């Protein structure tokens, strides 16, 4: 068995070497596709893959689609519906030959075909296609493809693709069984893979390091490379978790800033805050539907349109809620908590009645989907965008609080409501606007969340407890505290997650925050001042 396989391999290599510049063997390759011997078929596939004959691609494609037929005379034909062409020449045949039989596929042939496809794409005009093909070959590192890879490497001009192809060649060389005289190129290949890094290279190298068939020098080299790659992978893993933590923290930040405003200024715990987020997400969906129905060309910028719309809708709703409900309950924070909880139940049920209880799909625009690889990290664009967005929102809020008359009045009311009123600030108006601002911020959070999470009537419920923890942990009425708490909770959860699991990490974070509040009842950054309650 082993000998047969070696023979096949040699045949492949010989064929590969033969066909690269020449033409002579190609005629046989077409015929060999119909051969009853698997080895000959796969060899023919490899041969065709590297040829620049325009008919080769069509033949391989036809083989994959089961529209390649063999005639008893040894010629192969491609049949599409009624038309039949000769595979070798691409010329239509006058009369369909008798006794055409489809060439059957099996797994080995399919594998070879996939490799051949990648091999052909290595010669494609677009560098991106070539890179993708190289990636595919890297993952397979099939020794049979070595000639293809080397041929491609010889003609490749693009630096990125060249680097990748060098790695592919290294992996392919190492995929061959070890031979005593081939130690030097193999050692070189190990070094190339070590430089490439990544989990795939690690897999190949780890297998080499443990293989008894390898020379000791090579195993040693591979072992060293594995530990180096491991170290890198771990470091990048930490960075990746930090990014996840940061992005989750920024979602929490968006969810909690509005809550911090309403609680800080008015002492109102708004349990319907999560529902404001939910409404923001549904507004995003409605904006999307509206744009689809009217100006489909604007579809990529749905999110940008939804941001102001959600802010205004939720903000207006917030003002209505404040004027209609909250203002009757000032000075009774625990009652506002109950009343807003009731409101949240009504809003949830209303959304359920209008939009249905199931998740709705808010499309992520193309420019926000996908990810960028930074070293060993995968930065998903939508999470990156939320991070940036949260930063912008926080910055904007700071500007509003520091640079506008409303901000000044809000800070005055936060610090000493009675004194502010005595100075002529219309506190009811400030309350209404502050509540509207808080609700508007929740709407913005909803737009952001619609890009990464399911949008359903329960959306608010899944964020409300975490948002409260952020506000309480950070210290009420302090945006820097909210920022620090959101990032701490987001990062803390993600750092714990790999060791103890997602749910346990969440429990641990909750318990830690509970314990922290016992020590610091007013959070990390308590507000100090004359007007603050004891």
């Amino acid at each position, binding site marked *: 068995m082993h000998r047969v396989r070696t023979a096949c391999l040699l045949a492949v290599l010989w064929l590969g070497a033969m066909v690269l510049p020449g033409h002579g063997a190609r005629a046989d390759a077409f015929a060999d596709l119909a051969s009853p011997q698997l080895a000959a078929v796969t060899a023919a596939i490899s041969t065709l893959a590297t040829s620049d004959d325009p008919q080769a691609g069509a033949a391989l494609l036809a083989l994959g689609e089961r529209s390649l037929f063999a005639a008893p005379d040894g010629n192969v034909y491609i049949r599409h519906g009624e038309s039949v062409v000769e595979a070798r020449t691409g010329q239509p045949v006058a009369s369909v030959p008798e006794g055409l039989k489809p060439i059957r596929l099996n797994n080995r042939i399919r594998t070879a075909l996939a490799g051949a496809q990648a091999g052909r794409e290595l010669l494609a005009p677009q560098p991106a296609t070539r890179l993708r093909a190289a990636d595919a070959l890297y993952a397979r590192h099939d020794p049979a493809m070595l000639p293809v890879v080397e041929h491609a490497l010889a003609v490749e001009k693009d630096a990125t693709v060249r680097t990748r192809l060098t790695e592919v060649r290294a992996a392919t060389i190492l995929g061959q069984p070890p031979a005593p005289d081939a130690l030097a190129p193999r050692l070189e290949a190990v070094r190339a893979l070590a430089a490439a890094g990544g989990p795939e290279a690690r897999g190949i190298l780890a297998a080499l390091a443990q293989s008894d068939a390898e020379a000791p020098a090579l195993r040693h080299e591979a072992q060293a490379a594995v530990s180096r790659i491991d170290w890198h992978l771990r470091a990048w893993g930490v960075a990746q978790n930090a990014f996840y933590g940061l992005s989750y923290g920024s979602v929490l930040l968006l969810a909690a800033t509005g809550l911090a405003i309403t609680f800080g200024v008015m002492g109102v715990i708004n349990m319907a805050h999560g529902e404001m987020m939910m409404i923001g997400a549904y507004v995003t969906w409605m904006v999307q539907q509206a744009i689809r129905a009217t100006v489909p060309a604007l579809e990529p910028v749905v999110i940008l349109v939804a941001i102001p719309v959600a802010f205004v809708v939720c903000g207006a709703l917030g003002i209505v809620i404040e004027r209609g409900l909250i203002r009757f309950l000032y*000075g009774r924070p625990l009652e506002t908590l109950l009343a807003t909880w009731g409101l949240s*139940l009504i809003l949830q049920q209303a959304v359920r009645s209008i939009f249905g209880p199931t998740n709705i799909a808010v499309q992520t625009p193309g420019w926000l989907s996908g990810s960028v690889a930074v070293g060993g990290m995968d930065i998903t664009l939508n999470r990156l965008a939320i991070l940036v967005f949260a930063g912008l929102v926080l910055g904007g809020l700071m500007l509003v609080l520091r640079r506008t008359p409303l901000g000044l009045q809000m800070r005055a009311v936060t610090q000493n409501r009675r004194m502010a009123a005595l100075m002529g600030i219309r506190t009811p108006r400030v309350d209404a606007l502050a509540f509207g601002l808080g609700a508007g911020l929740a709407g913005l959070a909803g737009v952001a969340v619609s890009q990464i999470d399911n949008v359903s009537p329960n959306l608010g419920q899944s964020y409300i*407890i975490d948002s409260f923890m952020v506000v309480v942990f950070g210290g009420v009425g302090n945006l820097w505290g909210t920022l620090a708490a959101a990032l701490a909770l987001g990062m803390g959860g993600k750092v714990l997650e790999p060791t103890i699991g997602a749910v346990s990490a969440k429990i641990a974070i*909750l318990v830690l925050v*509970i314990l922290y*509040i*016992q020590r610091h*009842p007013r959070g990390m950054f308590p507000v100090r001042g004359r007007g603050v309650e004891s």
Partner: protein
Amino acid sequence: MNPFSTHAPRSLRGVIWMAMAVVVAAGGLAVASLLPEGNPLHASAFVVSLAGKYLSYAMLALAVDLVWGFAGILTLGHAAFFALGGYAMGMYLMREIGARGVYGNADLPDFMIFLSWKNLPWYWWGSEHFAWAAVLVVAVPGLLAGVFGWLAFRSRVSGVYLSIITQALTYALMLAFFQNGLGFGGNNGLTDFKDILGADLHAPLTRAVLLLVTGLLLAASLLAARFVVGSRFGNLLVAVRDAESRTRFLGYRPEQAKLLVWVFSAMIAGLGGALYVTQVGIINPGEFAPANSIESVIWVAVGGRGTLCGAVLGAILVNLGKTLFTAWLPEFWLYGLGLLFIGTTLFLPNGLMGLWRHARKAPPEEVTPEVADTQGDEA
């Protein structure tokens, strides 16, 4: 500002009437359930278990009222104590199944065999004894409340902050109990119970007795709660509720008073949970959901915060409303509940009991005047 009367807890007569009414109603239903099927007064098994559920919830409401109405602690996590009591009872009921489970193992409950566990976890020790289960039913919630309360009250976490961390506590417990690894049946919780103390749980007589026992224990809890709030200690609690700083300046230790009533209340909630499980036949992590705790607060608010009878009445009425509503107009129950929350806080600050007193032309005692430091205590 506190709109609640300090006079209400002193009406011993009302509490005795309420306790008697509960016992009579539970006993009457129990007897009615034993009548033959054709009898017009016959109460079906469904009605009996529903009544048992209401009375168990009434115990939870009583527990919430003790801490919220009298000590001013708005708890958003009392359902956790209720559920813990339920789990403690559920463990015993689970072991009572014995070898009659699907896998026929006399020592291990089905879900543990399903997860291929070999031994009972240590905390299941002794769960085959009813007496031990009865201890756990109050000891576990009491212990958790003790630790949590000691930490929280000692460091003067109060008002909204305390509410939020009680909510976080029950949320964390819910997440934990959803995990299979904790050894409480994960998602499915504990169910498929068969006997209690050797009596068939599905037999009409057992159900009747359980309902009666629930009624009696609720009445006893009512009287015990009345004893607590009517004592000097009760006066101290009300003082803490209305002006914590002043009470402290006078030389009392508000945190100790709060801790005591908090633990006592958690125990009542645990007892309620245990009774609930025997009659409903299942306990699962959903009972820890923060929404449940908040709902129990609205029962108290509807009935009348700071009135023990009001808590019981509110729990029974709201749950009755829920049963009827969800049967007739399932879509509208959440609207109804939401409006109940809003309407009660806006228009019925003293709940139904306040309305009743008003109707009897006996307006509540004059409201405690607003003092400078209560603002700090409440916020």
